[in-house]
């Protein structure tokens, strides 16, 4: 199997799905000639032409709306928002239109499409290239939300998302785009189903539920706790809507403790939903209060390296938070 970075895996998923099904098309700003600002669509326009890989005007609402129009007509568009922070001009199209098409037409219409967007910080992107807006979209019935953390997961989940009959918001942690290489399967063997979490580290003392870039940070934090005799079980959710409650419940029944680690602002974040659901489901199994380990409630990640560092979770901060839960 070839070794791929996460961004290469995204590109491979698009390439394979476009080869497989000529209804699949790609649209967004700079996705064509340039191949995307992160190179996620590199070479696609040369292979598939300027219609199937379309450079769009710089207007996110119409990127979402045109994708919706194509989907309503039986095409399978994969729209790129250049940064997740810039998906907000398309919010009405995504939330009021795309997400509700099936429901409001009582099943007469559907809108199968994918909206990809790089998410998260730690790349000196500052306030408007670092946000983690997954909670906005996770709040919307009708949408599915995927946030992978490895090349293989990104490829498998994107291929599945493209084949899904419902609209999928596919958030790609930009800090991980080139962080690691991994062997990635090709073709049908790469497919992964949505809504399935991965237990990426076994442990008996504490369950840490995480996703995206925080998976790697949580894994490093878990390694730091090992000398103290604390064994952390780490679960990467991979899909946030629908999310894999059962895998988390099984883990908490074993460990009796839960922390959720996420990169977005703490309040009203997706981790709050995870904590609430699991507290409801696992109350009798819990030996300690459930905990959120998240970014501070400031508007977004600043540009200054000192402030960016102060904002971002890192292995030390996460280890401190996990230790508190383990020692409660």
């Amino acid at each position, binding site marked *: 199997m070839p070794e791929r970075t996460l961004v290469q895996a995204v590109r491979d998923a698009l390439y394979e799905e476009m080869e497989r099904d000529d209804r699949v098309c790609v649209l967004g700003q700079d996705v064509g000639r340039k191949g995307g600002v992160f190179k996620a669509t590199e070479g696609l326009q040369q292979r598939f032409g300027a*219609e199937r890989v379309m450079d*769009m*005007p710089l*207007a996110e*609402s*119409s990127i979402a*709306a*045109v*994708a*919706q*129009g*194509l989907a*309503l*007509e*039986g*095409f399978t568009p994969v729209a790129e928002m250049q940064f997740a922070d810039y998906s907000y*001009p398309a919010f*009405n*199209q995504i939330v*009021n*239109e795309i997400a*509700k*098409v*099936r*429901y*409001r*037409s*009582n*099943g*007469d*219409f*559907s809108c199968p499409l994918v909206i990809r967007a790089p998410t998260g910080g730690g790349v000196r992107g500052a306030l408007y290239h670092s946000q983690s807006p997954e909670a906005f979209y996770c709040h919307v*019935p*009708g949408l*599915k939300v995927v946030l992978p953390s490895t090349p293989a997961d990104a490829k498998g989940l994107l291929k599945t998302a493209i084949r899904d*009959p*419902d609209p999928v918001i596919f958030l790609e942690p930009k800090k991980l785009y080139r962080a690691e290489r991994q062997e990635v399967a090709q073709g049908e063997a790469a497919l992964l189903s949505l809504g399935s979490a991965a237990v990426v580290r076994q442990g008996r003392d504490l369950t840490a539920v995480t996703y995206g870039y925080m998976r790697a940070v949580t894994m490093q934090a878990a390694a730091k706790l090992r000398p103290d005799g604390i064994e952390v079980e780490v679960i990467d959710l991979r899909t946030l809507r629908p999310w894999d409650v059962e895998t988390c419940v099984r883990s908490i029944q074993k460990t009796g403790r839960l922390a959720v680690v996420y990169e977005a602002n703490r309040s009203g974040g997706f981790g709050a939903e995870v904590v609430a659901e699991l507290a409801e489901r696992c109350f009798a199994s819990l030996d300690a209060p459930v905990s959120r380990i998240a970014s501070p409630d400031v508007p977004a990640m600043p540009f200054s390296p000192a402030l960016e560092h102060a904002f971002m979770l890192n292995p030390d901060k996460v280890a401190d938070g996990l230790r508190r839960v383990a020692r409660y």
Partner: protein
Amino acid sequence: MLEAYRTVLRARALDDRRFVLNRAGKLAFIISPRGHEVAQVAAIAALQPGRDRFCLYYRNFAAALACGFTAEELMLAAFARAADPSSGGRQTPGNFGSRRRGVVIGSSTVGPQIPKAAGIGLALKWRGEGALCYVSFGEGATSQGDFHEGLNFAAIHHCPVIFFCENNHWAISVPQALQVAGPGVAERAAAYGIPGVRISGDDFYAVHAAVFEAAERARSGGGPTLIEAEVLRLQSHSTDDDQRAYRDPAELAAEALKDPIPRMRDALITRGWLSPQADQAMRDEVNREVEKATEAAEAAPEPEPGSLGRHVYADA
């Protein structure tokens, strides 16, 4: 032509009945097409329901009839019944949708259908079968960014789209002077390098001709057209609004005398296509139809409460 007139009469009679039912407490919320009916039916009559796509907005009650919705179906929507073909009673009754009729399900937000129609137009262009997408909206929607984004995209890619603005000069209580800078909506087409025309929406022939010409252009690869049809809003914005609170009584009284339906009737009579007797017979027929539709819709079952969670996703 007489069929179009019958559709106009049907729209008016149904709407009148809906208002009575609203005041009687039987219907929750209605948006009236009163004053727009002739423009809407003339526009759709120039197109090909079944082949073309229609992105309608909430005042397009008469347009929906012209696209093939029946009186009973629209009454089912007004009563929010399970058999409402647009949404099974989920949306307010101005959100029309029917896949088999090419009517793309709408929502209640203002303007999102405009760039969506551009995307549908792109798909139709790719398919190359000569179909087009018709999208309508009020002049209030032209203040939205989506208006610009939709026209811009459709013009860049020569999408077969007809942008049809029903300018009744009022967005609820905000007059055109506070809504639209410059002389009107049609002039904006020039900025996108596409044809823009302003016509009297009271004139069936003018509307039909403008839409027909735009359709020929769209079908032959000539790209989109912006049409501004000036119409009168002879009713308040909705049943929850009373325009007497913010409009000049003299102006309202003057507008009430300019109802486009008598004008259409007179034109048909002048051409010898309709007699006063035939007109009355047609009105009686339409009234009976409305009576029947109302009875059937009122008696139809409401949605099952257990269906609340259906159609959120494909598998539910």
